[in-house]
């Protein structure tokens, strides 16, 4: 089974996000970059499926040359080869990302795509669903359990009010939720081996995808900060304060 895993290079979720003084973008000077946490979970899940069913895990990232670092990390975890679509710094919206993926998937013909539900920078939660529609494949988003058997995947999904189970025919798109698994660390031999694994770089222009944005970001701002209030010394004072602020429902 061939599994394609799209990964995005994002900021470390524990780093402090600040705007550049002129508001033109995020100040990246003190930020560490990682594989988007949901995509790391996708890599782990793909590796587990390969360990069970055999096959190949292919990593795809769309971004600048810097994303090679994240592809190498995924290869060090155990993926077989990588593809970078080099955007040369062009800004792309979610729709363009999905249509670039359609192109790559047309060439690679994977049996399954496992990807993150959401990139933690833009917080869009769109690409997997857009991609599914463009391919006319079934989607199983927000997965917390995946079982594969006979060209079908049974997926438990995290939804409002509980857990939903769906069955999809392969090929399909699965997007990961946080509880799907705990990603492994790359081992030292893994890191050594990753250096030798194939990594193909494709130039965005060569794909012939129209990247006219459907959505553009016009402005970025910092929201007003919530101010810290007061500290109370005990429960009595807490209740007095709650009364004063009329915060109690009785």
């Amino acid at each position, binding site marked *: 089974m061939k599994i394609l895993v799209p990964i995005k290079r994002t900021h470390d979720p524990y780093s402090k996000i600040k705007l550049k003084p002129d508001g033109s973008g995020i100040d990246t000077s003190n930020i560490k970059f990682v594989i988007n946490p949901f995509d790391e979970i996708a890599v782990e899940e793909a590796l587990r499926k390969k360990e069970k069913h055999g096959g190949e895990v292919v990593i795809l990232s769309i971004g600048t040359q810097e994303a090679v670092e994240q592809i190498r990390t995924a290869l060090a975890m155990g993926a077989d080869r990588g593809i970078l679509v080099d955007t040369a710094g062009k800004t792309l919206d979610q729709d363009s990302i999905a249509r670039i993926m359609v192109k790559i998937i047309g060439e690679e013909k994977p049996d399954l795509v496992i990807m993150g539900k959401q990139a933690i920078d833009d917080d869009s939660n769109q690409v997997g*669903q857009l991609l599914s529609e463009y391919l006319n494949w079934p989607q199983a988003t927000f997965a*917390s359990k995946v079982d594969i058997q006979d060209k079908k995947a049974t997926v438990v999904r995290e939804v*409002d009010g509980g857990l939903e189970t769906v069955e999809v025919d392969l090929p399909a798109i699965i997007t990961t939720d946080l509880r799907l698994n705990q990603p492994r660390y790359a081992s030292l031999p893994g890191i050594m081996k990753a250096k030798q694994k194939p990594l193909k770089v494709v130039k965005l222009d060569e794909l012939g995808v129209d990247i006219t944005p459907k*959505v553009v970001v016009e402005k970025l701002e910092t929201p007003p900060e*919530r101010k810290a209030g007061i*500290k109370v010394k005990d429960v009595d004072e807490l209740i007095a304060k709650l009364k004063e602020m009329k915060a109690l429902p*009785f």
Partner: protein
Amino acid sequence: MSILTLLEIKDGQIKKGSLSAVTCARQIAEKTGLPYNIALVGNPSDQAIDEAAEFGAKTVYVVKVPNYTAENYKIAVEQIVNESSAKYFVALGSAMGKDLAPRVAAKLGAGMGSEIIEVVDGETFKRLMYAGNIIATIKIKTEKKVLTVRGTAFEKAQKSGGKSDVKSLQPAGTFDKKRFVKLEETKSTRPELTEAQVVVSVGRGIKDPENIKIVDGLADILGAAIGASRAVVDAGWLPNDYQVGQTGKTVAPQLYIAVGISGAIQHVAGMKDSKVIVAINKDPEAPIFQVADIGLVADLFQAVPELTEKLKKLKEQSA
């Protein structure tokens, strides 16, 4: 041309939370002069259809679909979009809305804004990025536009009198590469997390799933929903749909009480718009105190039972 907004149906009834999408549709209607229509997809009862007709929409479109899948609902929504010449499709950014709306957008060739918090004009909207650290103003350039709305940023629409026309459509087809198997529901007698006036949330400080019962009494007295940090949900101490935060639910109750929660940015992203935030944490340096209106540095195993007892007395007195 028109605006189409989706009301979610659960057990035949309209899900209150999705009325936020109607409010957003009304705001777009005001800004563009277009009328708005309501889509009811799924298994609405007759009563729910009647009710949906009281929100000032021109027409309520009904398509009966046995079980939710994004694929089958997309077919229904596309049908209604065509029938009503909709330029906008607006849904709540719930698990369903997040799953469905991008699929609709791709089908319509529309640009999409996820979980918008403000309508600036007919094509400009605001939304949050980076776990709520950044507000982005976005412009959707396509003729058709798809939006999901953040429930906490739009009031739930009130009925506006009058009666909409009701039109039923037959589903135009089904997608057979996906099958709904089952839904295991989290049973709770408490109010829904995203709709509750008071939320009591527990974090890893609670130490053991057995201890969650110590907030039960507090939640009972306050009529509160119980929420959780990801740490608690990850540990399997509470079901996943209790999670508040960047990647869980967004809540903005009148009162939010964080018990044994450190206040990681991802958690704060889901609750910082609450009216009054109370934090109980034994670590005076915990970041939760930077967003709390009232902070109590204390051992929760002492403070919570005492608070519960004293509020109980107070409630009895005021009854």
